[in-house]
């Protein structure tokens, strides 16, 4: 456990992909089976513990710490596992002579609680002089496999005491790692793909070799390591329909475009749906099987049985999952109503018919075509789709013709009259793909670009700030901003129109944080109200994708995908925009009142990560 903890601790700080691979591979080389296999399982998200859940962690820490101190600490740290790992009271131990004259020992709530409630650590005999050093040295070496075994098999009633015992035996990093395992989100910037790449780095395999056998394997992956190290045969895989890592694009900036030759590229609409990979193949006994994967390789076949059933081709298609009604693509908000449902009812299927708009082909029949150029893959894709239309559930994403960048810019600005027709509302820009580009997993720079439509922007005044979590913890990073209700700017009052927590740089974050701390006029729990009058306050230029009517906001409007574009230190709050400006924009966009769906920019974000090549 100590080595695993040290690994993920180090990984959490390593910014470079190659550095991460080196660290993981180094761990795999030096840690024996089965521990390393469970580490691989943890890194690929293959572990889950039924009786050890975040709620239990909260319960354990609540029994051991003062609630006020815990709340202040959690607010500051912004991460439950880390807060608990840091606050967990050291088990009682023999006290060595203090090097300082300190007549009274600490009578802090935490310490008292620890002595009363942590019998497990008593008598370890490892107590040193503990005046400065935060914690006792851990009992050396609880194997990771043992930890996983305990967490997997311990019953609900024993779990609290067992987990507390484990926490008592670990140091801060060990506790953090253990709690991360339990909460199931390591969040150390290591994808399953990266972990598999590190396995491949043990020998001469390619990462895709690992992907192909992966679906048939289970922790602790001993035969996989044997194969990777050249000591054993290729593990047999039963799965004829594996996930193949997808190819992603870079956003196209003005400067990039200048250097690109329009003749070398093909363009497609960028659909506002969800990236999907549909794989259909025959098993050894000749039966056809179909799997649908998300962009990250998650098997989502179960959520779209109607679609999986309708597909008739053989191969692997890359495309966008959309909802079509009467041949017309529905908005992302409609699609969202079909996502993340536990039960997929007949009614849901009928109301939200799923559809694939195909734009690439990875496997044609049984032939891997990823090494062919885009144009050649496209020709095969067109043939495959026309041969197997799947009751209209599968169609082609059309190419957008253009001779130069101006023409493409015109199409991007007005998709409706450039071929997208009634589906234009589901277009969020164009994709540019080099005609000669091979299908390369990951995000290579150069072959594929996404060129999204320009966002709207508004100058709004910062009204409230809240501390962030995760990467932004301990900084005020969630901002609620407002615009003026009066006839002219600076008149009437400011009403909140949205909340944003990204778009700014780290340096800007520090500046806003400083502003918030110095200009707080009110505190509501974790939220600070900052000064916002016509003469005092901070103006934020907020970019957003669209507007909707909202019954949930007092202003009556809600922004889609708002983010901080710039800090306008130069602009007095009295010159920020008015609500009337937003309302005019709302009318100009012809947006339907849709308070249910578009009023929640936050909920839109999660699935958005899965959208086409973004």
């Amino acid at each position, binding site marked *: 456990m100590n080595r695993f903890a040290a690994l993920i601790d180090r990984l959490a700080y*390593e910014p470079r992909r190659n550095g991460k691979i080196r660290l993981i591979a180094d761990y795999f080389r030096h840690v024996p089976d089965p521990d390393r296999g469970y580490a691989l399982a943890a890194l690929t998200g293959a572990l889950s513990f039924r009786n050890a859940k975040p709620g239990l962690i909260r319960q354990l820490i609540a029994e051991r710490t003062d609630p006020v101190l815990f709340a202040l600490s959690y607010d500051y740290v*912004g991460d439950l596992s880390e807060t608990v790992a840091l*606050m967990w009271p050291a088990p009682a131990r023999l006290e060595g002579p203090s090097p300082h004259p300190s007549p009274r020992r600490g009578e802090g709530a935490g310490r008292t609680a620890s002595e009363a409630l942590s019998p497990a650590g008593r008598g370890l005999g490892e107590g040193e002089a503990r005046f400065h050093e935060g914690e006792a040295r851990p009992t050396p070496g609880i194997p990771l496999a043992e930890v996983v075994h305990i967490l997997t098999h311990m019953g609900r009633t024993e779990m609290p005491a067992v987990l507390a015992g484990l926490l008592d035996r670990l140091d801060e990093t060990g506790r953090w790692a253990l709690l991360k395992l339990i909460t199931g989100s390591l969040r150390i910037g290591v994808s399953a793909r990266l972990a598999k790449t590190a396995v491949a780095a043990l020998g001469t395999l390619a990462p895709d070799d690992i992907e192909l056998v992966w679906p048939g394997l289970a922790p602790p992956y001993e035969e996989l390591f044997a194969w990777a190290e050249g000591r054993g045969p290729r593990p047999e895989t039963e799965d004829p329909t594996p996930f193949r890592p997808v190819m992603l694009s870079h956003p196209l900036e003005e400067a990039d475009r200048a250097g690109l030759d329009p003749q070398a590229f093909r363009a497609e609409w960028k659909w506002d749906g969800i990236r999907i990979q549909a794989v259909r193949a025959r098993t050894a006994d000749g039966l056809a099987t179909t799997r649908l994967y998300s962009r990250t390789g998650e098997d989502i076949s179960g959520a779209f049985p109607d679609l999986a059933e309708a597909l008739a081709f053989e191969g692997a298609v890359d495309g966008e999952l959309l909802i079509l009604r009467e041949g017309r693509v529905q908005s992302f908000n409609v699609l969202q109503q079909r996502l993340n449902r536990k039960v997929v009812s007949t009614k849901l299927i009928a109301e939200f018919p799923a559809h694939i708009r195909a734009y690439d082909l990875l496997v044609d029949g049984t032939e891997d075509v990823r090494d062919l150029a885009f144009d050649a893959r496209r020709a095969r894709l067109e043939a495959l789709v026309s041969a197997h239309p799947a009751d209209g559930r599968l169609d082609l994403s059309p190419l957008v013709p253009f001779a130069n960048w101006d023409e493409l810019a015109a199409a991007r600005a007005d998709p409706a009259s450039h071929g997208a027709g009634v589906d234009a509302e589901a277009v969020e820009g164009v994709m540019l793909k080099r005609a000669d580009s091979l299908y390369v997993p990951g995000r290579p720079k150069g072959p594929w670009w996404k060129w999204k439509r320009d966002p709207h922007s508004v100058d709004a005044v910062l009204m409230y700030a809240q501390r962030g979590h995760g990467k932004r913890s301990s900084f005020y990073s969630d901002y609620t901003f407002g615009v003026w209700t009066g006839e002219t700017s600076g008149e009437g009052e400011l009403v909140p129109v949205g909340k944003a927590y990204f778009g700014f740089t780290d*340096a800007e974050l520090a500046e806003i944080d400083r502003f918030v701390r110095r200009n707080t006029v009110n505190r509501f729990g974790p939220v600070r109200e900052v000064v916002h009058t016509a003469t005092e306050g901070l103006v934020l230029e907020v970019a957003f994708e669209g507007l909707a009517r909202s019954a949930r906001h007092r202003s009556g409007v809600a922004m889609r995908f708002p983010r901080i574009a710039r800090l306008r230190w130069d602009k007095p709050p009295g010159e920020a925009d008015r609500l009337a400006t937003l309302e005019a924009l709302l009318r100009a966009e012809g947006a339907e009142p849709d308070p249910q769906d578009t009023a929640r920019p936050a909920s839109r974000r999660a699935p958005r990560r899965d959208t086409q090549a973004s």
Partner: protein
Amino acid sequence: MRPEELLRSTPQGLYSPAGDFFIDPMRPVPRALVTHGHSDHARAGHGAVLATRQTLDIMAIRYGEGFAGRTQAIAYGESVEVNGVKVAFFPAGHILGSAQIRVEKDGCRIVASGDYKPGRDPTCAPFEPVSCDVLISEATFGLPVFRHPDPTEEMGKLIASLALFPERTHIVGAYALGKAQRVIALLRAAGHDRPILLHGAMERLTAYYEAQGVALGPVKLAREAAADELPGAVVIAPPGSLAEVWSRRFADPVTAFASGWMRIRARARQHGVELPLVISDHADWDDLQHAILATGCNELWVTHGQEDALVHWAGQAGLAARPLHLVGYGEEEEAESGGTPATDKENTASPGEAPAS
């Protein structure tokens, strides 16, 4: 005498109405008592400054010889009268020359402890608890999540990384006064005997430590190092310089940062630190509690940092406690933790220091 007549918070800083002097004032005043040389406590331009010899020397190095109208040195344990108020200085264990100041009149004793740490530090005199009625304590790390690990073990991480990446230069961000010298001393104690490369900003202060009898081994300016000295070398630089052009001369460096803030992972990541070293010159949560109780005070005033938690704890421990809102303190710490370049005093408010080079 009521404590507030002896010391109270004013916009200029902590002020003694009875003795007509300030402690660590932020703006120029006629008479100042200074706890230590960090720029959020020691400012130039006062009429008269009373401080330890070492603090006065450090101020002269940072601000130039004429940093105050006149100066008076006071030794640890020594006491003097200032307008009828008895004033005594005691070691704070924070950096070289750092002091706690006890003021006393008519049986009322208040200790302004400045920044302090009870932990072991060979580069300065060890902290002593000073008995008093009212203690003014910092709370930089006043949350139970801050329990500093053994600095020797933290330094072990740097030593291990040097072994793992012998071809890479290791740049350690460390505040120029105090932390830099402590990091060097810890490296020496861990057996690292190669010359340590310094950013220009810490050259004179490091030489001063050496002159005061703190053995730091061979050091040289990074800009004078030959290319073949860089692989596997340790470079100590102010935190603000880590992200700057200055550090680009080193090929593929490992970026470390020695600070108590490194305890919080998000903080370390926010600064792009690859090797966080939790080494602090401030009391941690446990230290604060022990140190406060050791003074026997019955009232606690909490200054910069996480006042809420410490005040809450003190209330439970039976002390009358309240936050003392002083403007300006702790901002050098923000700078130490890598605040924005525009507010980093390292770059703007220390004219006496060598420019980053």
